[in-house]
């Protein structure tokens, strides 16, 4: 982990109609850092994450990624999103494409990677997550865990500088949670910058450099896993942890 800021949000606010979901958040994510975002449902965790790649457009505030304010209208957001991988709770793999085609789609379309090279890279990635023998099947023949592993390598194929995970294991059967968390752990070992919204407290405790506890649209408390899980200061944090631990 370095002290170079990869992402910085300044005075980030997001409202849906009259509902304030994010209230004036200013925060940085550093290169090589693993940040877990925990907190109760409706606290703004997912919205915060989705503002980082502008899947949600902030109502006001700035979202810097590698020095560029993505919230500015004139920014070519597609180019920047190529450097920000995202993995969703509901996998969102492309059902009309094979496993291999799922991975090759974005690199060949948007980075002009030649087909053979894209395939070579896809096969290499599939090997890393144990899905090589599935390369020619359609996603409807994959289990939830396999779909999520596919979604992860599909994002990695764009060689992103940061990976955002939005509750990647929440839609999985319990026995499949581990295989997905293993893949994320391997990613952490490789030095990837990661922001993950999760309900897996043990996982967050184990792998994170920092933890954000979000509630009511703000980062109520942040710190190392030890600071949050063992020495939390905020009432709200303590109350939440007492319910989930």
């Amino acid at each position, binding site marked *: 982990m370095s002290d170079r800021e990869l992402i910085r949000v300044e005075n980030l606010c997001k409202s849906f109609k009259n509902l304030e979901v994010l209230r004036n958040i200013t925060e940085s994510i550093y290169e090589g850092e693993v940040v877990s975002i925990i907190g109760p449902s409706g606290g703004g965790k997912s919205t915060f994450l989705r503002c980082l790649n502008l899947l949600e457009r902030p109502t006001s505030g700035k979202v810097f990624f590698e020095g560029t304010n993505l919230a500015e209208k004139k920014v070519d957001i597609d180019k920047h*999103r190529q450097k920000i991988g995202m993995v969703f709770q509901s996998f969102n793999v492309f059902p*009309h494409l094979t496993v291999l085609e799922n991975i090759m789609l974005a690199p060949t379309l948007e980075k002009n990677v030649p087909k053979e090279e894209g395939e070579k890279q896809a096969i290499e990635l599939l090997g890393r997550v144990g899905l090589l023998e599935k390369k020619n099947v*359609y996603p409807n023949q994959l289990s939830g865990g396999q779909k999520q592993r596919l979604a992860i390598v599909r994002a990695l194929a764009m060689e992103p500088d940061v990976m955002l995970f939005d509750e990647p294991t929440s839609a999985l059967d319990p026995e499949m949670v581990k295989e997905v968390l293993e893949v994320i752990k391997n990613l952490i070992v490789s030095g990837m910058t990661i922001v993950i919204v999760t309900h897996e407290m043990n996982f967050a405790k184990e792998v994170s450099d920092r933890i954000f506890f979000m509630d009511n649209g703000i980062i109520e408390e942040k710190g190392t896993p030890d600071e949050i899980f063992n020495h939390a200061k905020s009432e709200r944090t303590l109350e939440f942890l007492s319910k989930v631990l």
Partner: protein
Amino acid sequence: MIESIIGLWTKYDYVYLNGLIGTLWLSAITVVLGTLLGTLIAIMKLSKIWILEAITTIYIGILRGVPILLQLYFFWLILPKVVPFALSDTACIVIALIINASSYIAEVIRAGVQAVDKGQTEAAKSLGLSNRNMMRKVILPQAIKNILPALGNEYITTVKQTSLASVFFVAELMTSYKTVQAATFLAVPSLVITGLIYLVVTTILTSGLNMYERRMQINER
């Protein structure tokens, strides 16, 4: 009855076949141009640019809310007055049919695109796909499967609705019926022949569409 049908067919088969050619031609041009125009309208409606959305909503609302026969009369009366060149009755009716079909087709396409899971759009965007590539490679291929059955129904309806052109004596099957009926005063046998020809056309169209649908599904598995 059977004899009179056969008699009528042997004597006037060329009238019916000419009518069939007219119907096929009308249907083909209405389906092709109606689909192109309908796609354009659907894209405008999906654009999220409020003025385009408003215009297309009104366009679709009027065309689907007013009887098609009324629309044919309207365009037949109004078009020759507003265009600076001569328009035949047939041309007016073809334009009216295309415009009417476009409104139904636009709704089918819009619904098919919107039925694709929102997560697919988000995944495509998060990978950095341009809007164009997202539509071409992610959304439309999935939407086609939703669209195809409903679009097939629309096409069959379109074929049948070309019969309304007979009100304006545009050369097509229903006009052939009228011609033969007027010459022979044999209304029912002429209707049966005309109906059978329509049935052949729509049955071929239906089985063609079913085959295509099945092939799409096999590709998916």
